[in-house]
């Protein structure tokens, strides 16, 4: 019987008290396929007595059915949870495992070795304090070893265990072990990983897993479990200044107003001076409220509710900071981005970025460079594909509070979400704010938009016509412009003829080029709206997110999306320019409706059903709408 079991039996109260005060180490294991990650974790669970009879029974049965170790237990099967994986014999996702020893509690993220699943490794690493990187002694360092080490360093892991596994298969050779260790240290030094411990292992046989092995008399370091029990856990943010991203405003009644969130840096006491970002307002902390009574102090990692002495406006997404050492505030950053979407990054497209409790619209410029994870070389790139990483400029549609990721993971780490699929398509780490975003201000001119509107006698706006090629957008837009002109309104019509031949003549029809084309049109429309004009645009503009991007460029109420709705079968039959025929024959690529999608508006301001209405009547409806909205007067 081991010491822990004896204590449980003899003095459960004492055991529970010891257990309660254990610290927690979160680590990841990573390596290439067949390096033995799952076996290593299975062995740790087994050795720490975290496996119970029914699990061992199931393991025994599974080992006979799916196992690769003959009659012996196949520890990998313990960890490979999903049946799909058991059949394929690979790990396909991040799995979390729990075990405890007499000294510490552990949460292990088992992360996959397959190249296409790099996003899962970054996911597992984002919450880890330490990485165990496995290398097969027979194979030495592989592309994936470098990739995983690079990604671990990218997400801020500074402690690595180099687990040189399967040493039994190279006759416990000290030379092989030393060679791998040397090569690895050389590589890791470039990444600034200072703390590396290399351990010779056979996870399958248990050598150096929990105790020194007689097979490696030349090795004098700790066993894997000893090292994991002893290694220091530290987080730079704990000792940094106060940071409390506000998740929820707590208002049970009119008398109480508290701000709920988790401290991600520093500590706080009643009476402390704080500054709330982005507003910059200051106050002092009143109480730290919990169900167990008010606290005299809260530290990094705790979830609390604060009250402030002054009635200042604080909402979800704001950050309560130490008044004397507040976070930065910016809307443009340089960041390292890891792309996780099946669709590549579309530079200029409007995504959502979640940073702390704030979710904001954001666009990402084409990468400054992409990092080759094998050589750490910087390569030129126009986009980021799935599992690629690179340094990009990120522009948000409003300023947010932040700290560089290296100082505070929770204040500098963000995810990128696609507005349409709602998928998490990327993750990133902020390096620094770009000076530009703090220094460029719009030149305040004396003749401004208000002055121009006054002179024009109507309000400006964008009439954004969207629909399939041949649906009648230009026809209707032309009639509307003629009517507006007759009413004395200042207008301009942007269409394929005056844009594709000039402003966008360098662009083709790929998805990326379509996005850029619409972005340019949106920017031109924005300037024209600022000039006081009513701008009509007639473009297929097939993607919802680009239309939303254009909408976001002007003020609320200035954007009127008009869906010219004609069924594909009808436009294809009309085919005024013969384009559908060419597209069907394959002579025209990326043609909307044929081999490129059209995303119909979900809630356009106006829906023109051309099967029910002719162009003149459609124009009547549009003019009527503009009058109703107060953009023009009926008799201007």
């Amino acid at each position, binding site marked *: 019987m081991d010491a822990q*079991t004896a204590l*449980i039996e003899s003095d*459960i*109260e004492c055991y*529970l008290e010891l257990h*309660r005060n*254990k*610290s*927690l180490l979160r680590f990841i294991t990573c390596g290439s396929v067949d390096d033995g990650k799952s076996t290593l974790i299975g062995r740790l669970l087994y050795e720490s007595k975290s496996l*119970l009879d*029914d699990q061992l029974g*199931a393991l025994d049965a*599974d080992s006979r059915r799916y196992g690769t170790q003959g009659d012996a237990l196949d520890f990998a099967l313990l960890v*490979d*949870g*999903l*049946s*799909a994986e*058991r059949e394929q014999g690979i790990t*396909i*996702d*991040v*799995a*979390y*495992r*729990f075990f405890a020893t007499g000294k510490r509690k552990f*949460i292990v993220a088992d992360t996959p070795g397959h190249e296409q699943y790099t*996003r899962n490794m*970054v*996911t597992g690493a984002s*919450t880890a304090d330490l990485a165990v990187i496995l290398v097969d002694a027979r194979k030495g360092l592989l592309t994936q070893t470098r990739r995983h080490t690079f990604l671990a360093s990218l997400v801020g892991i500074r402690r690595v265990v180099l687990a040189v596994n399967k040493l039994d298969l190279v006759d416990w050779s000290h030379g092989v072990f030393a060679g791998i260790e040397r090569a690895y240290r050389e590589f890791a030094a470039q990444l600034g990983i200072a703390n590396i411990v290399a351990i010779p292992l056979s996870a399958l046989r248990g050598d150096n897993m929990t105790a020194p092995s007689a097979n490696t008399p030349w090795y004098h370091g700790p066993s894997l479990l000893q090292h994991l029990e002893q290694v220091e856990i530290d987080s730079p943010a704990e000792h940094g200044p106060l940071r409390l991203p506000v*998740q*929820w405003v*707590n208002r*049970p009644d009119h008398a109480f107003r508290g701000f*709920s*969130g*988790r401290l991600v840096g520093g500590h706080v006491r009643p009476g402390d001076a704080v500054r709330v970002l982005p507003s910059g307002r200051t106050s002092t902390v009143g109480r730290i409220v*919990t*169900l*167990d009574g008010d606290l005299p102090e809260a*530290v990094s*990692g*705790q*979830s609390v509710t604060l009250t402030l002495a002054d009635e200042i406006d604080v909402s*979800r997404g704001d950050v309560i900071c130490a008044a004397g050492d507040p976070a930065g505030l910016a809307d443009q950053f340089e960041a390292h981005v890891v792309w*996780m979407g099946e669709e590549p990054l579309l530079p200029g497209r409007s995504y*959502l970025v*979640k*940073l702390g*409790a704030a979710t904001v619209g954001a666009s990402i410029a084409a990468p400054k460079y992409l990092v080759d994870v094998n050589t750490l070389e910087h390569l030129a790139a126009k986009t980021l594909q799935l599992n690629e990483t690179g340094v990009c400029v990120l522009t948000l549609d409003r300023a947010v509070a932040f700290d560089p990721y290296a100082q505070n*993971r*929770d204040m500098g*780490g963000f*995810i990128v*979400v696609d507005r349409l699929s*709602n*998928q*998490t398509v990327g*993750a990133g780490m902020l390096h620094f704010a770009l000076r530009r975003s703090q220094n460029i201000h719009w030149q305040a001119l004396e003749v401004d938009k208000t002055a121009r509107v006054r002179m024009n006698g109507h309000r400006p706006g964008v009439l954004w016509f969207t629909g399939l090629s041949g649906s009648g957008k230009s026809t209707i837009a032309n009639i509307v412009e003629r009517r507006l002109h007759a009413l004395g309104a200042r207008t301009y019509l942007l269409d394929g003829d005056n844009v594709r031949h000039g402003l966008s003549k360098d662009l083709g029809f790929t998805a990326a080029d379509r996005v850029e084309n619409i972005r340019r049109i949106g920017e031109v429309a924005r300037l024209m709206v600022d000039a006081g004009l009513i701008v009509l645009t007639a473009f297929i503009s097939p993607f919802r997110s680009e239309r939303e991007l254009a909408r976001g460029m002007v003020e609320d109420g200035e954007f009127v999306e008009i869906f010219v709705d004609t069924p594909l079968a009808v436009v294809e039959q009309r085919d005024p320019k013969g384009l559908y025929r060419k597209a069907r024959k394959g002579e025209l690529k990326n043609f909307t409706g044929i081999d490129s999608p059209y995303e119909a508006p979900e809630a356009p301001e106006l829906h023109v059903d051309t099967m029910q209405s002719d162009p003149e009547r459609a124009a009547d409806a549009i003019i009527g709408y503009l009058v109703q909205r107060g953009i023009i007067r009926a008799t201007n």
Partner: protein
Amino acid sequence: MTALNHLQRLEAESIDILREAVAEAERPVMLYSIGKDSAVMLHLARKAFFPSRPPFPLLHVDTTWKFRAMYALRERMARESGMELLVYRNPEAERLGINPFEHGSATHTDVWKTQGLKQALDRYGFDLAFGGARRDEEKSRAKERVFSFRTAQHRWDPKNQRPELWRLYNTRHGPGESLRVFPLSNWTELDVWQYIRQESIPIVDLYFAAERPVVERDGLLLMVDDERFPLRDGETPRLRSVRFRTLGCYPLTGAIESHADTLPKIIQEMLLARTTERQGRLIDRDVSGSMEKKKTEGYF
């Protein structure tokens, strides 16, 4: 103040998850199954939103076959928390009188629980449901996200889960789609017990050993909790000192022989026992990979 111990860390993380979900959901609900994990989850919710009441209702998807003591605690906890309690019973199952004795455990669980849960979520239009599942319970749970996406048909796609980084949870979903959120993801069975003790959280007394009428059937000790239990030839309920490690429908939940009548004794017994807690449940034994299969179909 010294560094947080692991229970304080787990508590803070769970509260963080609860608040984040509530801040972003349109219509959240907490699945309340009356077991010890639900008890801990409810307690954490009361902490997370104090001094406000947790801003969502409790939902119990009932099968009419729970232990009587569970129904009693359910009413008490709803009263004490001041939260709205919704009880949903699949009307189809009620009409057909689905029960574990005549229809088998698989049909009983599917119709009452899996179908019942989907019906309840659809009927009330909940877009986010908290559940008390832990990653240490079962292999397929170990791979589930804290915020787990479900299609409009309530299906889980284990191969197409959203990456979940740091504490940044992506809660975006389309109409009809929903999220299952598991605030206890990183807790272990020992953590749950220790927290119940530390916080004096009320739990069903069936977890404590006492003399109870049981019969032995198919290798399980089943408690005869009411007169609906059909005894087979030769079966006579006998009083034995037993307790339960998990609680579900009484005809499907096996008891263990035990004299552990205090929390420390329960924890001691659990730590020295050599079987995991789900072993007392009939449903997980049906087929290998059964939990994963049920989960893709919409089971919690």
